[in-house]
């Protein structure tokens, strides 16, 4: 700034370097190419086989342990995971960014299968608040309705 008056540039802005940045090119940068199949998967996801099926009993696990266990099973290539005894636990099956066939044999608590991208989830029970919140892709089927029994009553 000190030599603004003695500068040889035409304007003050030019002497401050505001006209020298090249703005072209950035918009033409390619982030995603639909032709390349690898772009459809997150980095670090697993290649799973839907025909490989396993059961996971979460009765004595807390939500962190259960979610880690699901991740572990996917890393072994299991593509169909059946969760037994979810018993209304909170935050089960969250953050799955993988293709997966996930079946819950029971009800979920709050925040079930949140932040998922890809899995096909079937819940053979009810869910609490905020099920499948921030889901990007995939399918979630909840089989039991909340108010079934109340509606039957006069």
């Amino acid at each position: 700034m000190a030599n603004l008056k003695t500068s040889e540039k035409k304007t003050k802005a030019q002497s401050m370097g505001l006209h020298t940045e090249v703005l072209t090119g950035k918009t033409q940068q390619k982030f995603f190419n639909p032709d390349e199949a690898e772009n459809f998967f997150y980095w670090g996801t697993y290649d799973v086989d839907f025909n490989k099926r396993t059961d996971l009993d979460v009765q004595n696990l807390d939500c962190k342990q259960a979610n880690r266990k699901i991740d572990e099973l996917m890393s072994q290539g299991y593509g169909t995971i059946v969760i037994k005894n979810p018993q209304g636990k909170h935050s089960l099956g969250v953050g799955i960014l993988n293709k997966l066939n996930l079946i819950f044999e029971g009800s979920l608590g709050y925040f079930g299968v949140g932040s998922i991208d890809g899995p096909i989830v079937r819940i053979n029970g009810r869910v609490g608040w905020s099920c499948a919140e921030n889901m990007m892709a995939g399918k979630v089927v909840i089989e039991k309705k909340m108010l079934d029994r109340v509606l039957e009553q006069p």
Partner: protein
Amino acid sequence: MCGIAGLIHRGKSSNVGQELQGMLQALKHRGEDSTGYALYGNTDGKNFIMRFKVGENVAEGSTSVKEDVSVYDARKKQVDIFLKELGANIVKEERILPYSLRYEIEYDKDLMEFSKKIESVEGVEILSMGKSLEVIKDLGNAKAVCERYNLDKLIGTHAIGHARMATESGVDIKSAHPFWGYPFSDVSVVHNGQLTNYWNNRRMLENKGMRFMSECDSELIAVYLAEKMRSGASLEEGMKESLTGLDGVFTYFVATKDSLGMAKDTMAAKPLVLYESDDLVAMGSEEIAIRSVLPQEIDTYDPFDGMVKVWQI
């Protein structure tokens, strides 16, 4: 955000102390400031069971002022003198903690007069008075309170409980739930939510001679229902009236000697999950609480807004 749980066995008795402990422990993430139990035990129905406190728990996290144990002793002595004056005969006396006592007494006169006299001693509060009701409340989570008071062996028919996260008043025993429906024997209330017309109702009820021990908004429900019942309404009628009489968000349970009721406000902002069968009704703020009693697959449902329901044992 508090957690409430309740269960009623129809036609049989069970270890309700242990069962409710499991339910409340499952809800402990909804609040661990204090935990309260209202247990309806199997008794011969002759003597009154009076649970009362002569001081506050001043453990870590408490908002009450520390007092010396000798003060507790003096208050206890005063209570004993008053009991004698009232013509009540102490059958059994237990001092579970320095500040918490349990008396079995023979008494057959007016309870309002009785409790007014006992509570005129400074720092003394009757937590519950009834022929089968026992209210136990203290700071800490469900397991800690259960162990401190040895509740896991209590056999009874029904129970309600509360895990509290203090939002509207201090962390102390006097603001903890459940509240006794003074001056009715065997009536207790737990509540999840906030009431907004507390002071208006309190002024009105105080003018009618009811007593408030704390500044906890939930106490209003107990007093409100007690006043309705005193003027002749049934429990269910009183609860239905409370839906319009009380303002705010609430889901609450009321238990009496032989029944258990629930009410949900018209906005239905506070959660409740219900399980109903022929021999057991269990309900709680979250399904996870019910699962601690019934681990097998069951059908549960959420009650509608403005719903009032009462079950008999």
